[in-house]
């Protein structure tokens, strides 16, 4: 059984088969946001039909949300999965990227209207590298003083950092304009037949983000397979031992932080380009927690796992919106004269919470873990003390 599975592993297939499989997968992903394509994704069961697309939310938009969450989990995976640093405030870097783009590209940005630093809004494409650079800088600035802290102390510091960014963003009279936000954020360039390519339709953004993800995956994969990646793993496994072996742990941890932050910022710039409107409500702590769940649900320390996790944490709740219709479940229930809303739409995060618990109980290593880590965890399982 396991031998067969081994033989069927993609990495063990002959090269041409592997490449054509990969190409097929890519074609599938690029076709996915098209209605004529996804409408037929589903499970026919007798005369019933379970659609796999999100019937209550635009599939292309959901996919786009998936992509920027995936980018975030790729970034956080470097920090948590590879370097083993618990970061509870990763969304802070996303906020930095998003706000930089919003401030530079919106005609209603206070940089133009109040401070007169800019004469006219900058194009999105120019703002993106600045956003990434400033996120990276934020990562270094946060990491420099705090990376000496260990474990859970680092966790609370990162959480505090994200909250501080949110509180600053919340101030109406400050540059970020609080809850009122910054409208008319710039979009990526390009037009088709006179119409701008990037406007309200989420599809082109999804395709763009997909390309960015592919690029990011290649970059991160090469990094992980290099000396840097090995240093990270050494730090994760045993920081003291790594230090003794001559690994400059602080520098590599800072590296992980900075790279993670840059990828997080990149995600923010992409999102702002599509969102059209940026305000402080998006940057709540719940989102940081969601991204962390994505990484760990997928399988920390594995790029594919981070991608899967990032996809699922968005897709599952969004898909759950429609499951009431699919299965013909009642929306409300009346108990003792009181009506309670039990529609999957309103309970979807409760259901998602149960999914998280169940997955972690049966696959503590995540759904698609790093093979080596999975093996370690499999063996740990046998070492549970008697009767525990």
């Amino acid at each position, binding site marked *: 059984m396991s031998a067969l599975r081994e033989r069927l592993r993609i990495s063990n297939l002959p090269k041409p088969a592997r490449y054509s499989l990969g190409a097929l997968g890519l074609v599938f992903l690029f076709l996915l946001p098209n209605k004529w394509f996804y409408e037929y994704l589903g499970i026919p069961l007798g005369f019933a039909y379970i659609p796999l697309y999100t019937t209550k939310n635009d599939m292309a938009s959901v996919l786009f949300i998936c992509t920027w969450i995936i980018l975030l989990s790729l970034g956080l995976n470097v920090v948590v999965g590879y370097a083993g640093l*618990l970061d509870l405030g990763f969304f802070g870097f996303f906020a930095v990227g998003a706000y930089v783009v919003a401030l530079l590209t919106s005609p209603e940005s206070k940089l133009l209207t109040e401070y007169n630093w800019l004469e006219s809004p900058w194009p999105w494409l120019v703002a993106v590298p600045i956003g990434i650079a400033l996120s990276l800088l934020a990562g270094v600035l946060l990491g420099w003083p705090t990376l000496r802290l260990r474990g*859970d102390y680092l*966790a609370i510091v990162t959480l505090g*950092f994200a909250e*501080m960014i949110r509180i600053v963003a919340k101030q109406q009279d400050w540059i970020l304009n609080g809850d009122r936000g910054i409208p008319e954020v710039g979009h990526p360039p390009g037009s088709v037949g006179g119409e701008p390519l990037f406007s309200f339709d989420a599809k082109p953004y999804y395709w763009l983000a997909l390309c960015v993800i592919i690029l990011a995956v290649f970059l991160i994969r090469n990094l992980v397979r290099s000396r840097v990646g090995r240093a990270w793993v050494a730090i994760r496994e045993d920081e003291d031992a790594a230090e003794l072996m001559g690994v400059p742990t602080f520098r590599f941890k800072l590296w992980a932080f900075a790279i993670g932050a840059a990828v997080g910022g990149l995600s923010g710039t992409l999102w702002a380009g599509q969102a059209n409107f940026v305000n402080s409500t998006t940057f709540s702590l719940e989102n940081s927690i969601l991204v962390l769940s994505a990484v*760990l649900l997928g399988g920390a320390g594995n790029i594919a796992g981070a991608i899967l996790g990032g996809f699922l944490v968005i897709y599952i709740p969004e898909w759950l919106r429609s499951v009431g219709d699919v299965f013909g479940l009642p929306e409300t229930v009346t108990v003792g004269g009181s009506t309670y809303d039990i529609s999957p739409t309103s309970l979807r995060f409760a259901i998602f*919470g149960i*999914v998280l618990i169940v997955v*972690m109980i049966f696959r503590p290593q995540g759904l698609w873990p790093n093979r080596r880590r999975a093996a370690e965890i499999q063996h740990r399982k046998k070492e549970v003390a008697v009767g*525990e």
Partner: protein
Amino acid sequence: MNIGELLRSFPELTVTGVTQGAIYALVALGYTLVYGVLRLINFAHSEVFMVGTFAALFTWGLFGLDSNTERPSIGVALLAILAAIVVAAVTSAAVALLIEVTAYRPLRHRNAPPLAFLITAIGASFVLMEVAGSLTVRRPFGVPALLPSKPLFDIGGWAVTPTQVTTVVVAIAMLVGLDYFVQKTRAGRGIRAVAQDPNTAALMGVNKSRVIALVFILGGLMAGVAAVFNDIKTGSTKFNVGFLLGLKAFSAAVLGGIGNLRGAALGGLLLGLIENYASALFGSNWRDFVAFVALIALLMFRPTGLLGESLGRARA
């Protein structure tokens, strides 16, 4: 910066800060107890607290008290508070134990990596909060007026209300009681033993599972008591009341040195004061900002919190 504001209202800021700090401290104990024994941030503890606030409200409902009823006589009020403490503490403890049994114990049996616990904790938190949100239609609920608002006495020109006195007194009693329990009783010794060295504790005949369950129950009891006084103090509750307070209490636990009971008490008190002073100095909108700056600054100088880590390892 508004130093005048701070100086003018210093006594009252201190009194209200101590009251808030007492509630933080009680909730922080739950984080610290579990962390001390399991090295685990019990993210769902905030919802244990939230359930407690509703349990208290329910109890007062049984007394026929709601936010519109006249203030009851002092005897009835104290009885109602006492009943609410019992009900809320027991309910919270039961929820805490339920979380341990459903979300953590199965993972321990599989020797799962620490971060897996964090995810089930987040999952449990989602479940509790969303279910409570659905059941309560996500609306706020008013708490009956119980204790008279006439001040009991003055501190530096600031009137101290019965609510503040009761909150602080009960919190101190709970803290002292818990400290005594952990330091002096057989079960408390078991907790400390597991916290300090789980393997050796097993060699002494300590049942680790039972100790862990006990720790969750104790944390739940504290959170339940905190919930009662938070109800009385803020005058209302809502399905998401735990989130922010849990975050603060967790910060307080870290501030004092997570895993350290007295540290949690100290951290809670400090955080309550810092917040109040900060809202006078910089405006309430910067309150949490300043609290986090203070926390981070402190961790720079004392990387394991004010009193250092670990249950009972800090030498008294």
